[in-house]
């Protein structure tokens, strides 16, 4: 049950609605909150993965050895949900191959390696696009061409979300700048330092969606960002306001943020667009601004490097493809072996598989956490305290879900809402028995997806097998037919040959008769004439094999198919 009560103290007047559950982890944002965004120079080697987004892998359009300019497209989106990839700086493509992905599995992914030449030579960029005059589809096309994806971590291609106005009636654009994960300060800094740019990007997105109002949601623990953004959005042509939302994890979860702001719940497995709202991340808005006003593709992003194992925590504007190790070196390196090296925040971030893995569009933080900052404890039996139930923002019963998943009752877990879990990790955070709750939900969800894939694949292979069987039957039938035709043809030929032989014999006989019967010309001539007529008649069946051959030629497509 959702309790509705106004939280006027936050939000600056507008009514807010409370959501269920949530936790208050210590935020550690002070480590990097006062570090201004700094630009990191290009490293000696960039590894640009072709799969930095949800959807299909991009298709490379450069070759090994090519010289590329900064911002030049090096891979294009494949299919409806995909994103283009651009060269982060000028240099030479030294390899196109598979390289460790910034993904917990550490599996290799198609990657273009570029050796920067240090010239920072820009490619020819498309001209600026004015959101006031551009059509919504033009804005979406520009955003797609710039390879912008959701930069809050989900990495869904933004252009697809900008086209939602075509399918849904949209009222409100929500800009998610809650940044509820501990440690992360990159969005905070972006809002403080580049508030005008972010506000302009917000305006571009609103224009593309055709919405009538904008809400920029910022957590109450970022007063400076709230102030800067309030000033920045005041001048926009569309009604816009900054909403201060309570500091509570997971406030940045899309559906929960929408509920806090509007009191409306998004139905299970539906989009927020179904209730007329689209949510975009603040960093995405900044990227859209660069794409629209300067034609610049998404080739860098602000990353928070923090954690107590990092010597100099910072907010770094990093080129996409920079290896983690170079970024850490830029921040003074690690002071000790971190207990955990995470990409993203501590609640939902994923362990980095390798220091050589690159920073990609969806990485908002690199955290080197010391043993003191991590919990590493033996998990104990569940005492059914229901702490997890009270903090679950989705209203689920994590303890029951976990029990079912432990027994491999995945369907049973789905029945009680496994698919509504947003994997925020609040349950694991509060569990006094240290039960890996969210970890087992992640396992179960992955396993279900895999099962679905397997099933789909089996259906596909079945279809393939049936098609092959049909084809084989067709080929066999065609072969049989061809064989029958050939037999008929041969039979006809044989017949014709016999006929010819007969005819020749008849002619010979007639000639002999003519020679021998010179004395009696009258009957001989008559018989010779009869023989000639017979011969003429005999040639007629000779045409038949030719006709048959034509028929065989007509049947030839079958044969070629059989050959195929």
């Amino acid at each position, binding site marked *: 049950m959702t309790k509705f009560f106004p939280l006027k103290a936050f939000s600056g007047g507008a009514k807010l609605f409370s959501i269920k559950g949530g936790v208050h982890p210590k935020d550690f944002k002070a480590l990097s909150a006062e570090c201004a965004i700094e630009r990191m120079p290009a490293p000696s080697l960039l590894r640009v993965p072709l799969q930095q987004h949800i959807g299909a892998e991009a298709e490379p359009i450069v070759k090994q050895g090519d010289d590329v300019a900064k911002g030049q497209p090096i891979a294009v989106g494949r299919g409806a949900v995909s994103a283009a990839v651009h060269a982060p700086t000028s240099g030479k493509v030294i390899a196109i191959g598979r390289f460790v992905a910034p993904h917990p599995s550490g599996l290799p992914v198609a990657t273009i390696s570029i050796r920067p030449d240090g010239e920072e030579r820009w490619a020819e960029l498309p001209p600026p696009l004015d959101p006031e005059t551009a059509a919504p589809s033009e804005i979406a096309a520009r955003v797609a061409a710039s390879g912008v994806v959701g930069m809050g971590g989900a990495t869904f291609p933004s252009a697809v979300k900008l086209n939602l106005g075509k399918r849904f009636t949209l009222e409100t654009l929500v800009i998610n700048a809650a940044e509820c994960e501990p440690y992360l300060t990159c969005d905070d800094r972006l809002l403080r330092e580049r508030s005008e740019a972010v506000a302009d990007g917000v305006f571009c997105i609103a224009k593309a969606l055709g919405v009538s109002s904008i809400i920029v949601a910022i957590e109450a623990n970022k007063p400076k960002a709230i102030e800067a953004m309030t000033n920045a959005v005041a001048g926009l042509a569309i009604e816009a306001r900054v909403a201060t939302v309570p500091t509570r994890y997971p406030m940045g979860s899309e559906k929960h943020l929408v509920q806090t702001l509007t009191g409306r719940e998004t139905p299970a497995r539906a989009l927020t667009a179904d209730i007329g709202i689209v949510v975009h991340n603040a960093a995405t808005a900044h990227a859209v601004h660069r794409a629209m006003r300067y034609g610049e593709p998404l080739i860098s992003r602000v990353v928070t490097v923090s954690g107590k194992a990092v010597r100099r925590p910072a907010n770094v504007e990093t080129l996409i493809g920079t290896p983690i190790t170079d970024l850490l070196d830029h921040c003074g390196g690690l002071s000790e072996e971190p207990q955990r090296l995470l990409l993203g925040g501590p609640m939902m971030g994923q362990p980095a598989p390798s220091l050589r893995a690159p920073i990609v569009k969806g990485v908002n933080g690199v955290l080197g956490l010391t043993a003191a900052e991590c919990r590493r404890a033996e998990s104990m039996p569940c005492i059914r305290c229901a702490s997890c139930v009270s903090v679950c923002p989705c209203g689920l019963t994590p303890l029951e879900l976990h029990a079912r998943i432990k027994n491999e009752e995945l369907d049973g877990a789905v029945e009680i809402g496994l698919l509504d879990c947003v994997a925020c990790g609040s349950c694991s955070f509060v569990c006094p028995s240290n039960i890996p709750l969210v970890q087992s939900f*992640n396992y179960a969800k992955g*396993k279900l997806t895999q099962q679905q894939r397997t099933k789909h694949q089996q259906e596909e292979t079945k279809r*393939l097998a049936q098609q092959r069987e049909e084809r084989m039957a067709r080929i066999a039938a065609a072969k049989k037919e061809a064989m029958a035709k050939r037999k008929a043809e041969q039979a006809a030929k044989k017949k014709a040959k016999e006929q010819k032989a007969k005819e020749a014999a008849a002619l010979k006989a007639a000639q002999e008769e003519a020679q021998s019967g010179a004395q009696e010309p009258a009957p001989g001539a008559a018989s010779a004439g009869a023989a000639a007529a017979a011969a003429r008649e005999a040639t007629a069946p000779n045409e038949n094999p030719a006709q048959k051959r034509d028929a065989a030629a007509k049947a030839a497509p079958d044969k070629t198919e059989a050959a195929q």
Partner: protein
Amino acid sequence: MLAAVATMTAMGLSLGALLGLAARRLKVEGDPIADEIEAIMPGTNCGQCGFPGCRAAAEAVAAAAAPVTLCPPGGRMLASELAELLGVEADLSEMGETTPMVAFIFEDQCTGCTKCFKRCPTDAIIGASRQIHTVINDACTGCDACAAACPTQAIVIRPRPDTLQNWHWPKPADGLDAAAAPAREVAA
């Protein structure tokens, strides 16, 4: 009394006639259970179960002549589905978690003889005469037909390689919490 007897008799006769008619009209040809089983079988007719094709296997399962665990490509998932369909208890413990297998061709040993792709029931091998052949993993069922046909033993059946698409987190083990969890320090 008479009316009741008459009514019951009339009803009995008419319903009996109806049933008799239905038995003739709606007569089912063949075994519908075998059809249902065949529908959920992989359908590649690979023959790993020992029956000539999925139809024969389905008939055997329907007749309880074969266990529901007979199909290696279908794996545990198919076995549990079959058990559910037939209403039998399946002993899945012996089956274990089957890892999906795919064929792999060692290119240095492939002579391009085309024997393998002529055997492949799902057209998962591409290549041409005297060209190196290769396997499309997504279409391969790991049925072993190609490996048996290869004259140079250039084909092995190996577990399907993990990709970012099919990888998922392993089941967390009890004991030391192996996944990321921040220290439980709560904001003041």
